[in-house]
């Protein structure tokens, strides 16, 4: 072996050793590595040391010095690494890793909002935008424009909270239909979530204010079949792919024909699959289209209204509607999102 070859071997050892020392991560691995490099019997350094006497005498001094320098450097590196690993091992022992992490407070979305958001997301995918309207409405928007005949028993279904000055707290989100149709040219595809009011006592199953979601689609040639198709699609998305729907007759002054949609679902209450009514719907009554100043021969459409609060109650197994209003933090925390 020439001096040059020997020095190459020494430098190679230096470079490899540095790489391996950096990579070692436990004290055990460190010991194995040290033996492989500086071990007396099988260490790479000992091998080179053994070659040293075979070199020409003139070169031995230079070669010996180089090897020694590398040996010192490696030993230094090994020691540094050992100290680091020993310290880490000691620190690790002082952490009781069974103790809890440090949580921030968790916020929560109201369960009714969870339901609304899910409904809204499905309809947004099929082209619906969001319309909002006032809760303090006029008699005309709440009743007259929606084809309620004055003094009709149908209004008994909507026992109304009247405000001073003749306005009222809207009894449904349907006034938003009329406001939207007055303000925008068809085609219209909107969803109107919002709070509505009825003169009901506040007990386990009734609340004087609750949320409703209105849907409205107006265009040329919209038919009852479109209504069925869209709402059945919604039901399958909301309740699961194979959910069956059925439509039966109903009555709302502002739709004709009027219908209710039932879905066949298992609410998880142990009663198994059964039909439940989830929304009222129908073709928008021509009188409503005309009340908004549109031509009811040219434009037709459908609308629906549903109650996300009722859905939330059955979905989350709430026994009392007042839980949704009481704002008890222990109730709200059950809907935490982190």
């Amino acid at each position, binding site marked *: 072996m020439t001096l040059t070859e020997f020095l190459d071997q020494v430098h190679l050892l230096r470079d490899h050793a540095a790489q391996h020392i950096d990579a070692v991560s436990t004290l055990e691995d460190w010991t194995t590595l040290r033996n492989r490099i500086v071990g007396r019997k099988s260490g790479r350094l000992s091998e080179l040391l053994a070659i040293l006497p075979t070199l020409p005498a003139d070169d031995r001094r230079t070669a010996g010095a180089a090897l020694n320098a590398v040996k010192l450097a490696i030993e230094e590196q090994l020691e540094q690494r050992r100290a680091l690993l020993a310290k880490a091992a000691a620190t690790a022992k002082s952490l009781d890793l069974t103790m809890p992490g440090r949580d921030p407070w968790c916020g929560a979305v109201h369960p009714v909002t969870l339901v609304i958001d899910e409904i809204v997301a499905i309809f947004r995918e099929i082209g619906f935008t*969001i319309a*909002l309207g006032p809760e303090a409405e006029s008699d005309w928007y709440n009743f007259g424009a929606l084809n309620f005949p004055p003094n009709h028993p149908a209004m008994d279904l909507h026992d109304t909270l009247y405000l001073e*000055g003749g306005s009222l707290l809207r009894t449904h989100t349907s006034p938003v239909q009329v406001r939207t149709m*007055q303000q925008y040219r068809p085609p219209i595809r*909107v969803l109107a979530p919002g709070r509505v009011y009825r003169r009901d006592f506040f007990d386990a199953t009734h609340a004087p204010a609750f949320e409703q979601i209105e849907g409205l689609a107006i265009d040329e040639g919209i038919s009852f079949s*479109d209504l069925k198709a869209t709402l059945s699609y919604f039901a399958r998305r909301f309740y699961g792919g194979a959910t069956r*729907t059925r439509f039966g007759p109903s009555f709302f002054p502002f739709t004709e024909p009027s219908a209710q949609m039932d879905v066949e679902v298992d609410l998880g209450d142990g009663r198994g699959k059964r039909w439940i009514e989830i929304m009222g719907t129908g073709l928008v009554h021509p009188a409503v289209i005309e009340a908004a100043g549109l031509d009811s021969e040219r434009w037709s459409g459908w609308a629906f209204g549903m109650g996300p609060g009722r859905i939330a109650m059955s979905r989350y197994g709430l026994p009392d509607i007042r839980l949704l209003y009481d704002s008890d933090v222990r109730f709200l925390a059950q809907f935490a999102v982190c």
Partner: protein
Amino acid sequence: MLISFDWLHAFVPHGETPESLRDLMSAHVATVDGMEQLRADLRPIIIARVLSAVRHPDSDHLWVTKVDDGSGTQLDVVCGAQNVVEGALYPFARVGTIMPTGNKGGILIERRRIRGALSNGMLCSARELGLGEDHDGIMALDLDAQPGTPLLEAMQIGDVRYDVDVLPNRPDLLNHLGMAREIAAITGTSLRLPEELGGEPEPTRLAAGAREASSAGVTVRIEDAAGCPRYMGVVIRGVGVGPSPAWLARRVESVGMRSISNIVDITNYMMHGFGQPMHAFDLAALANRQIVVRCARRGERMTTLDGVDRTFAGHETIITDGQRPIAIAGVMGGLDSEVKPDTQDIFLEVAYFDPGRTRAARRSSGVISDASYRFERGIDPEGSPRALAIAAQLLCAVAGGRVDGVPIDVGAPPSRSAQVTLRPARLSRLLGEAVEAGEIARRLESIGFAVSAGRNDALVVSVPSWRHDVSRDVDLVEEVARLRGYDALSDELKPFRPGTVPDHPFYEIARRLRDSLVGRGLAEVRPLPFVRGEDATHVRVQNPIAENEPHLRTSVLETLAHRAAHNLTRMQGDVRIFEIGSVFSRGDLGSGGRPREEVRVGALIMGARRPPHFTESKVPAFDAWDARALGEGVARVACPGTAIVSIPGHGDVLWRLVSDSGESLGTIERIALDRPAWASEAFGVEISLGRISNAPVAPPGSHAPHEPDPQPRAGHVRFTPLPTTPAAEFDLALVVPDRLMAEQVESAIRRSAGDLLERLVLFDEYRGRELPAGHRSIAWRLTFRDPVRTLRDKEIEGRRQKILRTLEGELGVRARSV
């Protein structure tokens, strides 16, 4: 509305089972909310076979039988019936059975000795099971069944009652005839008159008059034609008031009414069977043998059937005998003139009362009766003559009376010449499926519409008198659609055009606010917005739900504070809640206008700043600085594109949030709560998203498209190049007299630091004895950076000196000596 399966079947002999009929009604007519087997109490009764019967050794009328009840053991049963036959099947009540409705209803069958012989159960008679009055012996069953089979499974016993949700547009469904008409159409069966009526009565001559008519010594006069367009009546003499025959009692009971007497039951039978409310007066109680229909006088009084003394408001239509009121028209009869056990002659009222007037009278009197419910919704105005004839025939047959004279008919039914033109093409377009004119006509005719051909392929449809809900072509579209079945229509999704309506700006902002606040650890709430306020500042609900909360809230925090207090009563002190909702102020109410409605976000924080953790023995509570950061953070999300300034406020208002243009956006407040010692202070934030207008978009009947107001939006972020030079930092700890606000010092620092000041952070406040009295120490960290070169130490020191000179010169503030 309660509907009896048997009664329906008497009108229309369909072949449906109770279940399939329920489904048909729900799919085509009206939702059936419930279905009740009326003799469910018979469930424990089984069928048993008598194997042998021998005379009881110690009795001349008792039998000792061996009975096979399917259990495998032969039971000894003592029986008192003389008609017991060996080998025959009988209803049997085992030991332990509680007897169903009948003359032994509620009795527990026990093992007992009867004159020394053991009896294990009871063989039942029809009477004991409530299945008839036959008490000649036990009920022999002529059927083929295994002993042990429940009686209800082996034979159709007892009626089934449906609870049908009849909506206000279909008063014609509030009786069995109306519902039967629909069933007949759907099942393709013909209507008939129930057999119990003994055939259709002959139409009779009537004593008719526009305002007044007389017959059989009774005169009827209408003075209030608006309230009572038509009044018919008939005198029936010689009736015997008594219990109803079984079939009549059963009909009345099948719709949940009590059988009272043959006369009253017949009026109820007619109302539930044919939809015509009737009232029977005791003729002897009519002072002048007169019926005068007139408007009540204010303050006039009468005692109604329910024993309540009532005073009239003056607008009610009432029936009088020419002297005093004897009934509130269409609502309830009077106590004095009701049929009594000794009544012999009656006057039967069969009238048409105006729906609106009945509704008003019902409301002011507070009485809801089955009659008012029907008059309010509108009965069949043409149905009265036939109903009167059937009722008279029944009264004579059941109560043994005879009709005196001819029936009286005063006034005229309100005329409705409802004819509707229907174009099959439009119907097909609206349903999304082609329907032939022939099918349309057939469907409509099946429920009483008359259809003839009009011009241009249109159909001219005459509406039957009982249908007040049909006035436009779409009403007929519904009839055709539901009779075919909504479920038969296609539900294939078709392409759609996108709408023209943009999202309401509040929707997107509310969504972001919710995300932000939930991320900050707050929970969304949706409480009721009713409060106790002041009439001068709040909008009052005219008919509030609770008198102690008659106003609408003017702020969200008003509600959140109540909710926080509610949590404190439940020992919950860590409350972090928010709401996005409407608040109401008086707006133009004072000048006859509308209240003003605004959408706001409110947030309330109270309690520990973080959940407990072992690294921190006591978690600090939220304080004003948390509230300030929360408020400013929420304001940035709520008011995109607006620079927000917090201005120190007064009292409980810690800061007012104001836009750079001076517009008030909201407040950050200390919330005054009545809190227990363990609870910490509450802080609130309330910020307005803007007004939601309740002004009309356009006048009724008109369309006024206009562009929405442009909404301020946050612009896109513009990138700032990352620094390439090192920053230089130093701290300034200053001794500040208490009269100076931190902000004054800070703006002096900014002014004197020059434009290389990159960041200025107030990081410490200190008060202590080593400071002069009336002073505190405040410390800032200043970061300087030149974008292109490294700042030299000398330059930095020069700036520090300049800042200190300015502070001393302008404010008298010095660096704190270390």
